[in-house]
């Protein structure tokens, strides 16, 4: 057993796990904060919606599509100058967060838009008929009704960010991905690779289970 995992430096694994947790947590927070309003705007300005605005929708949709169509590994590299400008470094945990948000926010925005579209139009109509203004329709009816879908979206985004965060190891992002690349790949330490992958799998499982439970809790249908 000792020999089998001879290369594994457990304290190092601990630090790397924590770094991954921080990267995913922080980037998820900012992705949700940025993606939610973008998603709501995408929905509202869309065809036959409350604030139908074909031009605004086209522009917003284009930006979101561009960010989503760039492979994340490329986005990581393209973002480097911008990240340095923003927080002074492109390395480590802090340096990984801006590209993660750039990848996560548009992804989450689309999921928000989709779950808002799932809300029965009749509910919007009924709320309008009660004399609600647009703000009241969004916060009083649309978001509460779409909440289970939005939570499911947060779960999917979190899981995507786990894999993105692992990828950021390539440009020196830190965390479990960084460990896997530096030790598992570059130094052929298969045991380190196996451990990091196992930890990532557990992490994703826990996220998915927690997300599913929350969705169930908030579903009233």
């Amino acid at each position, binding site marked *: 057993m000792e020999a089998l995992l001879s290369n594994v430096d457990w304290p190092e694994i601990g630090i790397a796990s924590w770094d991954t947790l921080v990267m995913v947590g922080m980037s998820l927070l900012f992705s949700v904060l940025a993606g939610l309003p973008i998603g709501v705007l995408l929905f509202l300005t869309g065809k036959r919606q409350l604030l139908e605005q074909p031009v605004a929708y086209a522009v917003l949709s284009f930006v979101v599509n561009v960010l989503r169509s760039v492979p994340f590994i490329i986005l990581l590299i393209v973002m480097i100058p911008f990240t340095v400008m923003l927080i002074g470094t492109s390395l480590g945990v802090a340096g990984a967060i801006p590209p993660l948000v750039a990848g996560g926010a548009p992804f989450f925005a689309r999921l928000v838009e989709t779950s808002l579209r799932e809300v029965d139009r009749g509910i919007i109509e009924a709320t309008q008929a*009660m*004399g609600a*203004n647009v703000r009241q329709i969004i916060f*009083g009816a649309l978001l509460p*009704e779409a909440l289970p879908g939005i939570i499911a979206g947060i779960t999917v985004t979190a899981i995507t960010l786990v894999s993105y965060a692992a990828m950021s190891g390539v440009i020196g992002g830190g965390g479990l991905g960084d460990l896997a690349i530096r030790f598992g790949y570059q130094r052929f330490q298969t045991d380190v690779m196996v451990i990091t992958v196992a930890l990532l799998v557990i992490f994703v499982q826990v996220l998915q289970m927690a997300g599913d439970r929350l969705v169930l809790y908030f579903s*009233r249908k």
Partner: protein
Amino acid sequence: MIVFDQVQKSYQVDGRAIPALHPTDMTIETGEVFGIVGHSGAGKSTLVRLINLLEPPTGGDILIDGENITRYNAAELRAFRRKVGMIFQHFNLLSSKTVSDNIAFPMKLAGIYSKTEIRERVQELLARVSLTDHATKYPSQLSGGQKQRVGIARALACRPTILLCDEATSALDPQTTQSVLRLLAEINKELGLTIVLITHEMDVVRRVCDRVAVMDAGRVVEMGAVSDVFLHPKHPTTRDFVFESESIDSEEMQEDLQKANGRILRLTFKGEATYQPLLGSVARASGVDFSILSGRIDHIKDTPYGQLTLSLIGGDLELAMSALEGADVHVEVVL
């Protein structure tokens, strides 16, 4: 009072204007139950949504208690909408809110009611629609009829003066439909609320409405007191609706009448005349023999009525007819 003055509505489809409602004049009196009946696509949904401007008209004026609502700005329109309740075919309740919270929702949106006011009003409304025991349930835990009663309670929350019903009973089974209609009639009587109700079932109109407008292809083709429209339909669409509600196949009926002998009359009784033993006495006095080909005795809102199709043979037909007419029976010669 709701007044439509040359109100029209058309939709732009591929740059062309498709009319949904041709210029229409219509008056709905305060406190009456006004029915709008028509097949799907006849424009009745559009018509009812014009009253609270969920659909803005493309022409004409809509006056409600003398005020031209088409000139309202956004804030005035929102204030106005609070005074117009609306219920829907698919209820449109918020699935994320409990029964109580659904009923409280319009009051919270209005922002002019205190927490205690809202709580008391919700209790009062729950009692009115007999759902006090279901206050903390979610809509998905209720039956269709219960959901619609929540819809009604919610529509009444801000004490509206008008209640719009968009196919409110179309998704309900016959028994539930009855109880919902009874509740609507009760509300109309006790609160003096004006109710505008659209439906594709003439039976709904017959049970609760005072007056009715029949729509076909974006036009109101017939309008009047329910008893007049129901018992003496003029427009073909209206006739279809009346026959449909009585499950009469008009072609089959024609065939049956061809086979019958003698003079065929359709008698319509209304009110007290319905219960009089009239036929026997008329037959004895005039010496005619009669056989009943079809008949129905029922109610239009609270008024009983009867409609009989008879074939008369022999005797003094003129005398029989004048005797019937003299007893307040509407006589129509069919063949």
